């Protein structure tokens, strides 16, 4: 009896596993570390391990599949109500496991490597994201859409973003260059070099980052260097989304061209510093400000 059935059982098992493999190959994408991520079916329970990933998932139409996020995930408004699994740099493995996710969106350079490896060792699927420029935003939106089974909305969002950026690129490609100082923090005074997302946006608008050649991505500088570079415009974020106090500090340096022409512009930091679809809003605002500066020549 046993001898008769066992080949049949083997064949069944083989068929089942083949079918499983075929089925799995339905949802496959590459992540930002060039690894192939495959799911047996579109993810139904996703946890975002960075505030940026949360924002991207909402934009990709995966709000219903998103079951938890990390602290400081504050956009869109609905994200504030999501259950929390710790912060991006230290998450709570137990609460992640207890939520039984079928996909984690990790942040390659921001999340602790050991904790991500541990989650993978426990059998969870991790998509490593690492966004550095405009192209990464639209590509990630499409990939997340594929993984969550929301391609239609994700691709539409990606197309909108790409077209918006392209329109700005066309509009400003021949604009006269404006030397810009991008201030990202006040104490200590910090700026970014040309590798940074902010500088990509600045270039797109015809701005030239006066500190673009510094060796470090985010660099700490002194006031003296800003006075020496004498930028035509100063763009600053601030603590909170509408706080111009950093810019007002510059007014005491009346020798600065940017101060003389009143080219001190505020841009909400979350729209220019996070690689999410809102980057389009921040870039658009930046382009308008630089155009205002051109008009004051």
């Amino acid at each position: 009896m046993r001898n008769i059935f066992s080949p049949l059982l083997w064949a069944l098992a083989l068929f089942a596993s083949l079918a499983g493999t075929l089925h799995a190959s339905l949802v496959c994408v590459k992540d930002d570390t060039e690894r192939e991520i495959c799911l047996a079916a579109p993810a139904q329970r996703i946890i975002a391990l960075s505030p940026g990933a949360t924002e991207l998932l909402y934009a990709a139409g995966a709000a219903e599949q998103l079951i938890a996020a990390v602290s400081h995930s504050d956009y869109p408004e609905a994200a504030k109500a999501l259950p929390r699994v710790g912060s991006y740099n230290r998450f709570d493995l137990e609460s992640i496991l207890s939520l039984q996710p079928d996909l984690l969106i990790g942040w390659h350079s921001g999340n602790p490597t050991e904790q991500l490896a541990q989650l993978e060792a426990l059998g969870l699927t991790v998509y490593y994201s690492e966004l550095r420029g405009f192209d990464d935003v639209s590509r990630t939106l499409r990939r997340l859409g594929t993984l969550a089974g929301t391609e239609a909305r994700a691709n539409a969002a990606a197309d909108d973003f790409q077209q918006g950026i392209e329109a700005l690129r066309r509009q400003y490609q021949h604009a006269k260059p404006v030397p810009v100082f991008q201030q990202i923090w006040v104490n200590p005074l910090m700026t970014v070099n040309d590798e940074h997302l902010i500088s990509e946006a600045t270039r797109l608008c015809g701005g030239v980052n006066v500190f673009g050649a510094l060796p470090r991505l985010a660099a700490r500088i002194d006031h003296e260097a800003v006075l020496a570079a004498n930028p035509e415009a100063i763009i600053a974020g601030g603590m909170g989304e509408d706080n111009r106090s950093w810019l007002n500090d510059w007014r005491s340096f009346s020798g600065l061209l940017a101060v003389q022409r009143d080219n001190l512009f505020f841009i909400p930091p979350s729209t220019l510093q996070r690689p999410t679809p809102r980057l389009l809003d921040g870039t658009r605002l930046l382009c308008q400000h630089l155009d205002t500066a051109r008009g004051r020549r």
Partner: protein
Amino acid sequence: MAAAERSLPRLLPTLLVLGLAALLSLALSVSTGSVAINSGELWQVLNGGGDALHRTLILELRLPRSLAAFATGGLLAVAGALMQILLRNPLADPYVLGLSGGAAVGALSAMLAGLGSAVVSGSAFVGAIVSAVTVFGLAHGTGSWTPTRLLLTGVVIASGWGAVITFMLAVAPTENLPGMLFWLMGDLAYARSPWPALFALLGVSLLLLPLGRSLNVLARGPLQAAALGVAVKPLEWSIYLTASLLTALAVTTAGSIGFVGLVVPHMLRLLLGNDQRLILPACALAGGTLLTLADTLARTIIAPEQLPVGVITALLGVPSFLFLLYRSR
């Protein structure tokens, strides 16, 4: 004691040399930066003329910062020397009793709340004073106290503040972290106005002059001091109070800059002998000189990028201190 007690006029040449070094360090600090300004242009600016950019650079940026560095370094070194006398422990420094921890908790709370730099300085001062008063009250306890009791109370309070600081760093949003870490490392970019620290340094140096002899006796032990007619308790408490106030001012000006307060007094004792009438004013000058030089290096080595000044004070101080220690065997 006869060997240590030289007459006052014999102390003057040493102080004059240190004073000259201090002036040179200030001149060097004012004339160097990420923008090159030659001595002719510098002279014009100091005489009320010169290019507008150069005027801003020198009068509004470099000069206040150099003076703040000098005052902070001097305050820390004097406070360190006083703590070492008070606790009769060579490892004592201005922060050993938890004062910088209290100031850090105050400053970081203000930063977490997103408040401006004036509030950050103010709450650092309040934190430092709260810590000093707590240590004072607890060490005083039910009457009798000893330097050991004061030291233990301070060290435990300092550990407590350390835990609170770690907790705050752990829960702080990412964008706040660089500012918080730079504050903890100590940084003269925060210096708003050098005057309070500078006046305090000058005032305390003058006030301590007549106390030098009593401090010399106290450094040899409280029993000997009492036998020689020194009112030990009031003297010890005024040392504690003075050192705390000086440290609070220094930390409020520039965050918790390490190393200066520990090593400068020791270096000077190795060089000049243990006469407090000389050591305390010498600390004010040498501590100021060291921090002024360190800050100049910190802002020019990889200009326009900036290094934390604490790195430089240690890099300058450790080899020179080890050399003096080795030579003095």
